[in-house]
């Protein structure tokens, strides 16, 4: 079997085809969509969702769901933002600029751990637990911040720089791709994706997550510590949401108690499910999830470029998600040939 044949048999093939077709379609109307500058815009739209999607994917594979990630993002970003605002008055010196990164990850991990414990100890459905903690964590964000925004001036320049600077930038006067770069925040997101792949595909615990999701009843019989793995999965999801939180501060330069992370869970779950992760557990790959994130990034960047008015954008965005899911479902059941039947 040819390598191409193997690729098309993979479940990721459908979504890859969709990304290519969508970009070509938009590129025909607006040639500037197929430029490096536009690629940079699309990539800059995706890192937060990509980081969150890696955690959410593990949770879904384990046959749970985490609705609280947007609130965890907001809370952990707020904790770091408040540290940056108060450090000089409280300690008499400024903490190193990078302190917010481990701090937000740690705060996120703690909140995720709490989710996991509630799900595991009380045998409650994750959708209910995280629906509750979604409101709880959001409310706590208001309480600790006194409903005050952390303004741009408090976020360290280096943190903000992660979204605009890069390890390498093509010189501005270079004939092709002048000024093009891939900012740190995008590389961090892809780094998280690679680590997630290595963890899921090549470690024992990684494989156990799939085993639990495929058959929760059989998993303990095979000697898997279901409780430990479940709590771990929620903790990782929380930690990654925390990382996304400090990246939010980097990308947008502020932390707001009500806006920051609001609706994040919907974007992330949409991307993950489009990427072929089953909400029934046991199924999903990092590659598929990355492609799902990129497809949503392409759509988000294309709608304003096509001049589609804001009032219609939400509806079109939603329709694209549904169409992507339908095509993906057909391709998965019948291979790429299934597409022909959909079109007929």
């Amino acid at each position, binding site marked *: 079997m040819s390598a191409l044949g193997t690729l098309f048999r993979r479940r990721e093939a459908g979504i890859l085809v969709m990304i290519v077709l969508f970009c070509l379609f938009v590129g025909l109307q*607006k040639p500037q969509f197929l430029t490096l500058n536009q690629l940079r815009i699309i990539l800059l*739209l995706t890192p937060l969702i990509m980081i969150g999607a890696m955690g959410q994917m593990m949770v879904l594979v384990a046959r749970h769901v985490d609705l609280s990630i947007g609130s965890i993002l907001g809370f952990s970003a707020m904790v770091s933002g408040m540290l940056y605002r108060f450090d000089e008055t409280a300690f008499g010196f400024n903490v190193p600029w990078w302190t917010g990164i481990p701090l937000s990850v740690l705060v996120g991990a703690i909140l995720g751990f709490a989710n996991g414990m509630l799900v595991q100890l009380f045998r409650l459905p994750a959708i209910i637990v995280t629906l509750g903690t979604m409101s709880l964590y959001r409310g706590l964000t208001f309480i600790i911040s006194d409903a005050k925004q952390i303004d741009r*001036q408090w976020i360290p320049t280096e943190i903000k720089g992660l979204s605009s600077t890069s390890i390498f930038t093509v010189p501005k006067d270079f004939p092709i791709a002048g000024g093009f770069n891939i900012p740190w925040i995008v590389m961090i997101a892809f780094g998280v994706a690679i680590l997630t792949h290595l963890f899921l595909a090549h470690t024992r615990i990684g494989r156990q997550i799939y085993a639990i999701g495929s058959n929760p009843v059989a998993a303990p019989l095979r000697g898997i510590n279901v409780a430990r793995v479940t709590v771990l999965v929620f903790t990782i999801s929380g930690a990654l949401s925390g990382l996304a939180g400090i990246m939010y501060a980097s990308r947008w*330069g*502020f932390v707001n*108690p009500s806006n920051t992370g609001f609706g994040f869970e919907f974007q992330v779950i949409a991307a993950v499910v489009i990427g072929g992760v089953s909400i029934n557990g046991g199924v999903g790959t990092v590659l598929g999830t990355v492609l799902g994130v990129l497809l949503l990034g392409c759509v988000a960047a294309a*709608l*304003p470029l096509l001049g589609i008015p*804001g009032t219609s954008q939400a509806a079109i965005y939603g329709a694209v998600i549904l169409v992507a899911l339908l095509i993906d479902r057909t391709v998965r059941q019948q291979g790429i040939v299934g597409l022909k039947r959909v079109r007929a």
Partner: protein
Amino acid sequence: MLKKSLIAGLGLGIALATGAAYAADPLKIVYIGKNTGNPYFDSITGGFEDACKELGCEFEFVAPATAEATSQIPFIEAQIQRGVNVIAIAPNSPDAMNQVLDDARSKGILVLAVNGDLVGNEGHRDANILPVDFTKTGPNQVELMGSLIDYKGEIAILSATTEAPDQNTWIAAMKKTLEENPKYKDMKLVATVYGDDQPEKSTTEMEALLSNYPDLVGVIAPTTVGVAAAAQVVQQRGIADTVHVTGLGLPSEMRDFVKDGTVTAFQLWSPYNEGWLAAYFADGVIKGTIKNEVGGTFEVPNLGTITIGDKNVMNTQAELTTFDASNIDDFNF
């Protein structure tokens, strides 16, 4: 002991006799913002709080989580139940709250629209406090934009939501100014887009403007979220010398962009003074020292003489304040 209660009783008697029941209870004022965590309202709230310290009133700020048309209704109902004397509100909708505001007024509560009005439904509130005469916002913004681009070239507008009433009034005035005033005949408005006051959406709309209109020289964003997002795009692309961003922004959010040269100048007013004026006005009306009549005037400390204009609208200042590198450090909101 006896003497004390006698004096207290006497005082109460006098108070009742003059019909001023407020003397027993401090005036309760509540301000209902558009949404929580909005730094703009922190500043208005500061004005209310400081005025209430002077006047001896009780002040509370509440707001729904999201700025939807109907999200303020339960808050108004709760405040009626609580028995406040004054409801000041930054309305999220010009008409969704007509009925509940009428309920409040029928119970003797003074209803003030502060920082926005019930356009077309002015009969459902007692008075309206706006920072400036909003008919001046559009022309002032166009003039500022013109001064930044030598009055020529393609410009675009990045607004809040498509239905935001204030922004739409200002945009209509901007278009009218551009069309009718020969001074601006070489400035061409090529697009008006909406970022829904979300940083993500405002950013993608701004990026699309730059991609679709390569000759763009200026963007007016008459909304605090939009102007900060537009400035960030320009800063990250390093194109501040070709594309000029201005609009209505908060000094606290725009300071960095002004200091690094991304933004030369932007405008706003003092939200603090809106709260300050609203508290003095409410106190005066309830105590009977201010008559809420069109054409009436009264004095407010630090603001001077305030005139109650057409449809009971009051302004705290005559023109917009322009912020640039020379004065931005004088403002702490």
